[in-house]
């Protein structure tokens, strides 16, 4: 009883000292709480459906950021990983009757292999060449899908997948928890030693090489990690929609992912996730002019780029938080002095 009380106290101190001091951390905490508590407030199937799809795409956008935002390997064919994950888990589930909780990880494994397959030739390419080449891969795969209709379902795709869970709320929690866990893992990866090397590769690959780091290995690792997360997103999507079709491989799919990530701010992980949670439900709920939807979407993205080229979320974050010039710790913008070293903030 005493021990529990102590833990509770410590928890409270941590929350007060570390979470409540920064608006961005409060927002993240609220985000977790709202998502986890949503079914208690409303069980509207439409709302739940939108939130589930949003979280699937949030994984996808974050995985793009992990590869392209961090290591600077502009991948314009991210739909490839998504599509491979979706098709692989769909084929395993429909043709071989493998249950979803095995087929999704296997689909992700297939996506990792694809990441290797794509990553190795792409190691030799840089910048624009890389961006344009990666765009080609999903289109090649799409051609193959159309040519083998017996195996892949051709234009109609593979349908009749099993749901992961039959109950609405159970399904919701599986997807939301998976999303939160995966995104936290991605954020942790980028915050670790590996993440710093990824950053460095984007900024100056030659310098990283000169420091004795095998950049080839790290770049391939970025491809595989990104493929893994995108593959899981693809598998989850296939099992949720109960169909894996060629739309998962389309060019517009790759483009949308890039738009989300850049809109939210690249090389942040939280940026793309936030962007998906803003843009995707917005597009779903803006029903009043259905035919203008995409137009508005594109115009909004253009305006954001013109006025905040860094992306929306870093821009907002810079408005509400300041970095201490001395100890580099973030503070609320309203403070006059740093909360740790009491140096004056300007």
């Amino acid at each position, binding site marked *: 009883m005493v021990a529990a009380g102590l833990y509770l106290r410590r928890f409270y101190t941590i929350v007060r000292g570390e979470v409540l001091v920064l608006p961005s951390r409060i927002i993240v905490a609220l985000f977790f709480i709202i998502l986890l508590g949503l079914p208690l407030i409303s069980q509207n199937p439409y709302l739940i459906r939108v939130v589930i799809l949003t979280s699937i795409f949030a994984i996808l956008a974050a995985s793009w950021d992990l590869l392209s935002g961090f290591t600077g390997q502009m991948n314009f064919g991210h739909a490839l990983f998504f599509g491979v994950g979706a098709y692989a888990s769909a084929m395993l589930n429909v043709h071989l009757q493998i249950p979803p909780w095995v087929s999704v990880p296997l689909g992700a494994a297939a996506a990792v292999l694809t990441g290797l397959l794509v990553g190795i030739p792409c190691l030799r390419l840089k910048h624009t060449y890389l961006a344009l080449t990666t765009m*080609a891969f999903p*289109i090649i795969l799409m051609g193959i899908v159309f040519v083998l209709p017996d195996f892949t379902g051709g234009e109609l795709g593979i349908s009749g997948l099993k749901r992961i869970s039959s109950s609405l709320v159970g399904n919701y929690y599986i997807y939301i928890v998976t999303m939160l866990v995966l995104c936290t893992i991605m954020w942790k990866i980028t915050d670790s030693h590996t993440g710093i090397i990824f950053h460095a590769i984007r900024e100056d690959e030659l310098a990283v090489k000169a420091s004795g780091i095998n950049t080839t290995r790290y770049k391939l690792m970025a491809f595989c990690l990104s493929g893994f997360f995108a593959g899981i997103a693809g598998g989850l999507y296939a099992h949720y929609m109960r169909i894996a079709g060629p739309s998962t491989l389309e*060019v517009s799919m790759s483009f949308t992912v890039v738009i989300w990530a850049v809109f939210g701010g690249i090389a942040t992980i939280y940026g793309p996730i936030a962007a998906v949670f803003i843009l995707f439900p917005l597009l779903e709920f803006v029903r009043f002019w259905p035919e203008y939807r995409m137009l508005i979407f594109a115009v909004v993205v253009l305006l954001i*780029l013109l006025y905040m080229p860094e992306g929306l979320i870093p821009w907002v974050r810079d408005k509400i938080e300041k970095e201490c010039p001395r100890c580099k710790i973030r503070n609320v913008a309203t403070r006059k002095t740093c909360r740790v070293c009491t140096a004056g903030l300007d």
Partner: protein
Amino acid sequence: MNIIITGLITGSMLALLAISFSLIFGVARIVNIAHTAFYMVAAYCIFSLTGKFGLNPVAGMMIAVVVVTVFGLLAYKFLIDPIREHEAAVLIATIALAMIFQEAVMLIYTGDYRTVSALIEGYFIVTGVKVFYQQVLTFGVVLVVLALLWFLLMKTKLGLAIRSTAEDREVANLMGMNDSRLAMITMGISVALAGFTGAVLAPLTVLSPFMWMEPLIIMMAVVVLGGLGSIKGSFVAAYILGFTEALVVFMIPKGAFLKGSVALTIMILVLLLRPEGLFGISFEEER
């Protein structure tokens, strides 16, 4: 015979698109995803000018090219120029631009398939294959424009400025070339060429708001295959891929599905052997 004709037409169209795309990339380092969207806009302009207002097709083509050029310059001035420093932002901006064009066309003309009537009707028969006069005309006009472009780039002062800026922007700037004005002019030429391609090709294809996607991909493949920024490379690669597409469509069953895949596979294979493309010069690491 069919293969040769289709290959020549596709190849010339790709050559025009790819060369104009590499022009603006070389001079301003702008990857203009909306490039083929301009081509679509031009085609639709002709559709409404000749179909609705009953204009002479040639006049319609002229007006369409001018309209598209104005669109392109406006887009450059207000959307691309302010964010030119951020490479990724430019990419996204042009994607968004292409989507805006697509949606606008969709709203105005709906998603139905449209066709534009040919300039000259009729055909002649060579070894049992119908060759439409329109196809011959398109091919001829494209060759003339390519020759003009070559003349512009190689023999005039402006061409020299464009080529030197493409080679080394900083040094060209130091030599007194107005970098931003040149970028503007090149954007104009580039978009005008895209519009022109749309104009000459409109009678041969079916118009739809999504018609920009497919040529975009193949055009990118051509540009990458030939080497970014290399005009000669784009020209050669365009015909290579044009003929490959034609061969695949006519020789392999279900080839229509595979034509993009085969073209792109060739591109990737070549890149594996020569990462800077067929005629590209590998840029020095820009640091």
